[in-house]
């Protein structure tokens, strides 16, 4: 009789079992997926602020738009977004280049143009900033919306820092003609 008193009632066993299943469901729900686990680590900064990640430090010093972009002897007409950027490696310059430079507007990604010589894919020095420009050729009718610049060392952005700079395209000043700055040391 005393032994029977200590036996768990059947309803309690079922309740505990159901409770464990619900708890497991919550654990599964709270566990991040592969995309979240491997997501880049954003370093959000404003225009003019320095963002420092694992091995990438960058400052966007100016943002402007133009319909005629010049870079040395090269020029092209279009809807150009131009950014002046100081960028450096932080700890190591081994195989380090600015391989990811994209603007995201309304969920659409635009890569930095490879047509003019720019900071895109430029090798970086550890602790010594390089100054230059990035040019983005946008669709002709794209002149408003929230834009996000992403800068990272690898085109595969996963599991590394990514400098993120948000700005409003409407607020970017426009000039009829502009020059992409030459790439060189920030402090010559």
């Amino acid at each position: 009789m005393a032994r029977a008193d200590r036996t768990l009632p059947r309803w309690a066993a079922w309740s505990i079992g159901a409770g464990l299943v619900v708890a497991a469901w919550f654990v599964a729900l709270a566990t991040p997926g592969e995309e979240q686990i491997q997501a880049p680590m954003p370093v959000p900064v404003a225009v003019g602020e320095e963002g420092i990640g694992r091995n990438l430090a960058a400052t966007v010093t100016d943002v402007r738009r133009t319909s005629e972009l010049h870079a040395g002897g090269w020029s092209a007409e279009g809807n150009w977004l131009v950014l002046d950027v100081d960028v450096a490696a932080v700890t190591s310059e081994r195989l380090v280049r600015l391989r990811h430079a994209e603007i995201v507007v309304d969920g659409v990604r635009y890569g930095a143009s490879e047509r003019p010589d720019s900071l895109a894919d430029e090798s970086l020095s550890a602790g010594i900033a390089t100054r230059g420009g990035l040019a983005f050729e946008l669709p002709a009718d794209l002149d408003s919306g929230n834009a996000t610049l992403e800068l990272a060392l690898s085109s595969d952005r996963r599991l590394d820092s990514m400098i993120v700079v948000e700005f409003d395209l409407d607020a970017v000043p426009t000039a009829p003609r502009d020059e992409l700055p030459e790439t060189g040391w920030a402090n010559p």
Partner: protein
Amino acid sequence: MGEPVTGWWRRNAVALGALVVVLPALGATVAWHEWSEADSGVPAAPVVVEPGQDAHYGKAQVGPAVADFVDDPLAPSNARVLRVQIDIDPGASGLACAEPMLRELEGAQREWDPDTSSLTTDWDPLRPASCSSDLTEPYTLDVRYVVPRDAVGPFGVDVISSELWPDNVRFVVEP
């Protein structure tokens, strides 16, 4: 209360004993599996050569290494140029090595590649920046690095030959 609990432990003694063995074994197996490949591709611990000393590297005699900061009008104003010179006696069979990397041995432990494009280097075939297996007479490696002004040393200069991998030599220099 005490008697049934004791009975439960007794009834499950074999399973509990197995748990005590299996759980540590599982942990050890997973740890060994993960760590066994953790250092693949990493060079062996370098042979550290202190300032003023030299070392055998394969059949070659390397060192001593000296470093000093030099002026270069093309260097940025917030940086200095560190010039590292390493004596190499390659021996009859020659020694091939890549351009050595410079690393900070203290503080942030930053790493720099040799600068081959932005500085005014006078190229001298007997003072190359990397070792060539064609050279069998003694010569001096002459490598320049652009480093920020707050990088003061001591530095390590890593000489690595793919033929002698994973052996490598690290010269400690203090400009």
